[in-house]
């Protein structure tokens, strides 16, 4: 059986290649919304923060650090997705004139 580290590295390698291929195809037109979208997605660290804060034996320090982390990450999630959508809504094709 491969160790956790090995499986993790496989996942990392594959996800990086998928990421590079997918991102390469994004038109420069949308690079700013792309960055705010990946920003929101990288706030996935909220998952780690939830794990830290929810332990039965969580220390006060862990709780407070987790608290700040969740507040920071959820700010990113909410503002990131909303502002990306706000930007994308502005991109219009020429109307039928």
């Amino acid at each position, binding site marked *: 059986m491969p160790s956790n580290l090995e499986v993790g590295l496989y996942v990392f390698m594959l996800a990086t290649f998928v990421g590079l291929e997918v991102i390469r195809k994004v038109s420069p037109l949308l690079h700013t919304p792309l960055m705010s979208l990946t920003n929101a997605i990288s*706030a996935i660290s909220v998952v780690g923060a939830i794990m830290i804060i929810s332990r039965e034996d969580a220390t006060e320090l*862990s709780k407070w650090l987790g608290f700040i982390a969740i507040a920071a990450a959820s700010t990113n999630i909410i503002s990131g997705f909303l*502002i990306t959508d706000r930007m994308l809504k502005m991109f219009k094709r020429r109307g039928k004139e």
Partner: protein
Amino acid sequence: MSGLANYVYILAGALFILSLKWMNSPVLARRGVLAGELGMLLAIGGTLINHHHNWEWMLAAFLIGLAVGVPIAYLMPMTAVPQRTAMSHACGALAAALVGTAEIYQSQPGGFVMVALIVETLLGFLTFTGSLMAMGKLQEILPSRPITYRNQNLINGALFALAVAIGVRLIFVPANTFLFPFFAALALIFGVLLILPIGGADMPTVIALLNSYAGLSACAMGFALDNHLLIIAGALDGSSGLILSIIMCKAMNRSFANVLFGAFGQIQPSAAAREQRNYRSASAEEAASILESATSAIIVPGYGLAVAQAQHKIRELFDSLSRRGVDVKFAIHPVAGRMPGHMNVLLAEADIPYDRLVEMDEINGEFPQCDVALVIGANDVTNPAARNDKSSPIFGMPILDVDRARTVMVIKRSMSPGFAGIDNELYYMDRTLMLFGDAKAFVTEIVKELPAKA
């Protein structure tokens, strides 16, 4: 860990990939946002299945995020999007760093988990302060000129090496948690020092690079917590930041090392003693009649246009000329604006259809057939010296071939050189007309002159 959460994570990972994939077309992009939101919802929901102890804490923290996030998303002007992006890199990195810190104090794990935690906190803390610095420079709270001192790279390198050394010590002796505050402080200081020598013109690259770091930090957290979803999302973010920063570097013909350690814009070239040279200028009336009689026009917008808040006036000009049958396009240089793709957003906000926004490689072939090129608030990206003059600091940088248009008009406040402090040959060509004035005021005048001639 119960099984269900893992299956939910797999779904969330797939949605994140789809989300980025759909960003390749403006038609599908909003669906991409939806996929991302759904993925995030699943990720959080899946985590809560097994981790809901202390939920009051989570809820309270989430409500803070909600209260801060919503106003940011709706009130932030589009010109300030780069600052917001830098700020959210800071928030993301801080979250990762704090989770890592909590884990180090609580569990004091050894082996590769500790390696991952050290990488996570190192990247997290330095990206946190680095992004705050970038935000300060973009918001112009901090001077956007590079700040340098003697032996800068040496001192920064030594500090970083010291942080790494303490980190390695912690990896071998995790119980030495008293060392951690020093490690964290060094990482925080290094983040500040890293951005100090980087000038405002290089911010697009730096933002993209910090994006990559924030992603890698989340990725390292995935290794530490043995959570594959974190690894996937972090790797996607990391590779996105990497690609964008490579594109930005190429667009400026610079290397990473040069952007990070070069302090570009600091050494002012002596501008060849600024000899007096001849140029031609024109009035708004003349400019209007030239534009009106053209069959095709290419507008070259730069950040100066956004500073002057001239986007909406440009739209009026665009409409007015289009109605007269002039084929108007916009030439977008990759580094126009303060972050990758920024100019497109600014023009889209002014309701300019996105099929009129053409990237550099596509539009360069069209300049020789174009009657008028109108440059507004752009400078270095139009400088033919990048093609011809080997001694120029920007030699080799890909530029928009504005000088090949039949007539060139440049709206500019004065003849002073641009960001990089380099004189622009374009302004002295026989075919070039300088239109002196504020971008917004001048475009307004051109628009006013147009209907009178209809």
